[in-house]
């Protein structure tokens, strides 16, 4: 009896970890797409997540838009925000030093946070689960339908992601830019356009992450920094630039975090993922899935 209790506890923590980890994975994918296109870490990534969640809340609870429509509309709005960010702050920079671009993304993140606070205030917003909140029971542990939605949407996004980057012209040209921008330009790829696409896609994925997690964590304007940071942790652990690595790392990070919260201390839950980020950064900056040779070529 005692054993089965322990097992169901463990399973419960793992479910919780996968749920959070999927979000980190999505945020990490967003980081990677922009990193591959520009060599810059977009510090505003976390704000895309917040915007996605908050816009979704407003659409469903105030405007009573059906969930499916609101889902796509919110994603679209945030994607437009991403494109605006790229067109007005990244694209016009004539001599793009990495340090300057990083500070620009920090500025945008402060700005977006300020805008979110002016529009939605400091309250945290509740949103209904997509399909009820009666949990299923599996081996004594419970799993929310929303968790299944999160995992399912992650799988769908990864599927489309692979399809997009391997089988469409835009995706292929973006990959070419990521590998060598000058060479890509030589064969006629518009590299600046590729950067714009990368911001659109990255903002879109961030928004989706925000939309699907909001029913569980209740979104407020200030959540972007920590979500972004943990997503970044996943990106580093998975090997910066490697999106499939990021997905795996994100889920691992989420599970470790949930186990740490369950067995060690819930107060230090947020610190656990960050500690892993630091350890990986110090011991293996190329990430657990990235090759160290490839990472040496990347100048970040």
């Amino acid at each position: 009896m005692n054993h089965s209790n322990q097992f169901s506890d463990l399973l419960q923590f793992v479910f919780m970890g996968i749920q959070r980890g999927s979000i980190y994975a999505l945020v990490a994918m967003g980081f990677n797409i922009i990193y591959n296109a520009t060599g810059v870490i977009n510090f505003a990534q976390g704000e895309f997540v917040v915007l996605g969640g908050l816009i979704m809340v407003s659409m469903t609870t105030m405007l009573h838009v059906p969930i499916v429509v609101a889902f796509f509309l919110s994603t679209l709005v945030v994607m437009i925000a991403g494109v605006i960010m790229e067109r007005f702050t990244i694209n016009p920079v004539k001599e793009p030093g990495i340090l300057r671009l990083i500070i620009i993304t920090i500025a945008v993140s402060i700005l977006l946070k300020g805008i979110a606070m002016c529009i939605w205030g400091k309250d945290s917003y509740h949103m209904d689960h997509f399909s009820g909140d009666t949990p299923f029971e599996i081996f004594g542990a419970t799993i929310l339908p929303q968790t299944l939605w999160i995992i399912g949407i992650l799988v769908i996004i990864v599927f489309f992601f692979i399809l997009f980057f391997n089988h469409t012209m835009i995706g292929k040209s973006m990959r070419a830019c990521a590998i060598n921008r000058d060479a890509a330009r030589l064969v006629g790829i518009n590299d600046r356009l590729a950067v714009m696409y990368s911001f659109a896609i990255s903002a879109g994925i961030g928004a989706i992450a925000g939309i699907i997690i909001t029913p569980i964590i209740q979104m407020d304007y200030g959540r972007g920094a920590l979500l972004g940071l943990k997503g970044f942790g996943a990106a580093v652990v998975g090997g910066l630039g490697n999106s499939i690595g990021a997905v795996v790392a994100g889920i691992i990070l989420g599970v470790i975090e949930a186990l740490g919260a369950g067995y060690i201390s819930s107060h230090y839950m947020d610190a656990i993922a960050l500690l892993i980020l630091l350890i990986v950064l110090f011991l293996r900056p190329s990430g657990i899935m990235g090759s160290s040779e490839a990472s040496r070529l990347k100048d970040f």
Partner: protein
Amino acid sequence: MGTKDYLGIIWFSIILVVTPFIIGNDYYIGILVFAAFNCLSCIGLSLLMGYAGQISLGHAAFLGIGAYSSALLTVKMGWSPWLAIVLGIILAVIMALVIGIPSLRLKGHYLAMATLGFGSIIHIVTVAAVDFTGGPAGISQIPTLNIFGFPINSDVKYYAFIWIIVVIGLFFALNIIHSRSGRALRAIHGSEDAAGSSGIHTSRYKIRIFVISAIYSSIAGSFYAHYVNYIDPGPFGIMHSVLLVTMVAVGGMHKVWGAVIGSILLSVLPEILSTISEVVEGYGIEYKPDYDTLIYGSILLAIMLFLPGGIFQGVGDGFKRLKKLFTRKTSSAV
């Protein structure tokens, strides 16, 4: 240090001495004391950003280390504040080495990420370790400072004291820049490979400057704790780290003077804005502290897009252009 810098320090000191007589209001002097803490941190940070080309998003954590060392050691263990400050510095140095050595050995901006993670961890610990740091309730009754038996117990006294410290810090920073280390750092900023091939131990210099910048923040944190007599985790979070970076970048990250100007400007800005809002309140425009974030973000973005050298350099260039215009006019007249 060049003649210009000596002159700059003299002018700056004169302005500092005259200012309290002009404003003569304890509340505003208090704000300038807060500006001094930011200024001290930003001087250190500008050495790192402007001369080593690295960015730290965790400097508020070093402030926190200084502040909490001072608070804990003086309140709970009854140490002398000065000894506590020294221990805070030692702790900050150790932390900076732990973070700096692994991440600065790598090329690129890994330090930004490492410090961001480090800063959040320190903030989480200050909130969660309730037995040790007092948690969100913080630590109160931190004693005021004494210098040779003179208590620094009023805003004006603290103003004088802290700005003397800042000027000394400024003096040190300007000296570092014009030393062998400073030249080495500028070479690294220009090209790490070229600097390395001409015999500069690049990572050692970067680590050294990071440690120095951490010391500046730790000292600022200690003095902050002794000024407000009460600390809680609030001001040592990521937002403050980002704000410090904003101050340095707005002032101009390639000059220490830029950091001085940027930090003072942005520290008093909310005050200026709320004063203006009181004036225009009648017209239906009201300024709320909530807008601070928005305004800081817009200013930083505008500066980075249009004046990447910062306000300091921007004003300097403006003057030069004016001068040129003027001289051209006179020469054509002759």
